[in-house]
């Protein structure tokens, strides 16, 4: 059984099917990309996996747990982390605080310990801080540590978004267009980060990306979505040759 199993997912919004009968399976440690034209249902699929939407039909299983009806915080507790397409950071907080928030589920001290800030609360906070600093180093965010997120440039915020998802300590990382709107240089950095995440942490990654070059370069496998359905699946080489994919992408002229 795969680590993530999505079977026959259908999602209907006011009579309109955003997804119809989508099935995907992701193995532990894999880097899987989901591509497809705008409105194909990629983000909806991610929303279902991370608990923001609940599918009309179908089943989502993660490491044997049924997450079909789970809420986002439940999904997070099972080890699914998510970086949003439209940056969803806490803009009134610093980078450091944003990342510390991601350690929320790992902190176990009680309200009273927190109120006196001593003992367990203090030691766990310091521990969490150390973890966060590690991620900050890893994602090369040192200069921005105490800056308010709202004041950072777009590219950096995208990086913080990924860093925060990583701070959750996930088994499965969902990245929704982490490179959208970036400069070439920033994109190269991000690709490096993604590859490093997988290499050093062994995290399973599901990536939505428009840049086909990147996708073909780094993915183990690719799913192609169009009109809410999977139209192709396989290694980048196989998918690239699929006529339906070409049709969907070039718009029927091929």
């Amino acid at each position: 059984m795969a680590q993530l199993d999505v079977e026959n997912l259908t999602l209907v919004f006011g009579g309109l099917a955003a997804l119809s009968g989508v099935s995907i399976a992701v193995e532990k440690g894999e880097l899987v990309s989901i591509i497809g034209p705008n409105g194909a249902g990629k983000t909806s699929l991610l929303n279902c996996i991370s608990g923001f939407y609940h599918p009309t039909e179908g089943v989502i299983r993660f490491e044997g747990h049924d997450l079909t009806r789970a809420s986002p915080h439940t999904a997070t507790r099972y080890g699914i982390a998510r970086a949003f397409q439209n940056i969803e950071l806490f803009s009134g907080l610093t980078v450091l605080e944003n990342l510390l928030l991601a350690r929320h589920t790992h902190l176990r001290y009680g309200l009273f310990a927190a109120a006196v800030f001593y003992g367990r609360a203090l030691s766990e906070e310091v521990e969490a801080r150390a973890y966060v600093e590690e991620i900050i180093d890893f994602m090369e965010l040192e200069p921005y540590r105490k800056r308010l997120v709202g004041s950072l440039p777009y590219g950096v915020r995208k990086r913080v978004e990924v860093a925060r998802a990583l701070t959750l300590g996930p088994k499965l990382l969902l990245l929704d267009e982490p490179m959208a709107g970036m400069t070439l240089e920033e994109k190269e950095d991000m690709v490096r980060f993604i590859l490093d995440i997988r290499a050093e942490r062994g995290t399973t990654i599901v990536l939505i990306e428009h840049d086909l070059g990147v996708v073909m370069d780094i993915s183990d496998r690719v799913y192609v979505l169009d009109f809410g359905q999977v139209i192709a699946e396989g290694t980048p080489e196989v998918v690239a040759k699929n006529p339906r994919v070409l049709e969907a992408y070039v718009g029927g002229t091929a």
Partner: protein
Amino acid sequence: MSYFVQLLVSGLVVGSIYALAALGFVLIYKASRVINFAQGEFIAVGAFVVYALSVYLGMNIWLALVISLLLTAVLGFFVERVFLRPLVGQPIISVIMVTIGLASLLEGAIHLTPFGGGNFSFPSFLPQKGIEFAGISVSYPQVLAVFFTLIFLAVFAWFFQRSTLGIAMRAVADDQMAAMSLGVSVEKVFALAWAAAGITAAAAGFIVGTVSGINLGGLVSIGLRVFPVVILGGLDSIPGAVIGGIAIGILENLATGYLDPLVPGGGTGGVFPFVVLLLVLWFKPYGLFGTEEIERV
């Protein structure tokens, strides 16, 4: 049976006063997403202007009403310009608080006139007797209330469906950015909504004044009763305001009629609508006719 029907009828007429007060509230919310806590004070201003004109200046009451409607419209317009405009884009709480501050400001201003304390009443211009039909009775001021509500409803319906400005307001309510890109002046629309709210408030104040006399506290308290109405009807729905108003009026009356004898001390009519409000919020958060806000991730 006639008891029940009488409760319904009285509820309906009282409800139409609430509806009138709620109309202005909804207009402002619809256009600018602002909750107006100063609606009660607007109502008071409208009533006092009518009183001052008709008693101190001996003006005909209808003429006084027309002038009061115009004045409160100007007041609404002015309030939007001076107090609300600088807060565009600020968090909700700022905007709520500014209307609360405004309420206090208006109340202070009213205290600078002889109307701050005391009870007043309009010179009587309607028969006291009331209309009787099959054992059901309503007073003339109440008939007037229903009549006013119908007129305002008709005017607003016409305004939003037919006139260019009304259509512009609807556009702004639907999507501010899109409306702006089409060249609609959002600012103008906001100010207009406040002016219109001022008019409905003055009309409500006039009616309340004829029904139960003029007293600052009493008039201002109508501003609170608007909340269950708009929550039930939906914050941004004009027909919702009317139907919500009538529904709350009827519920209040039914509570008074059937619940009060069961509760020692009674007085359930005042609190029952707020219990309904909580239930509505839980089971139908956007009211009967309100637009649901869908969140996109």
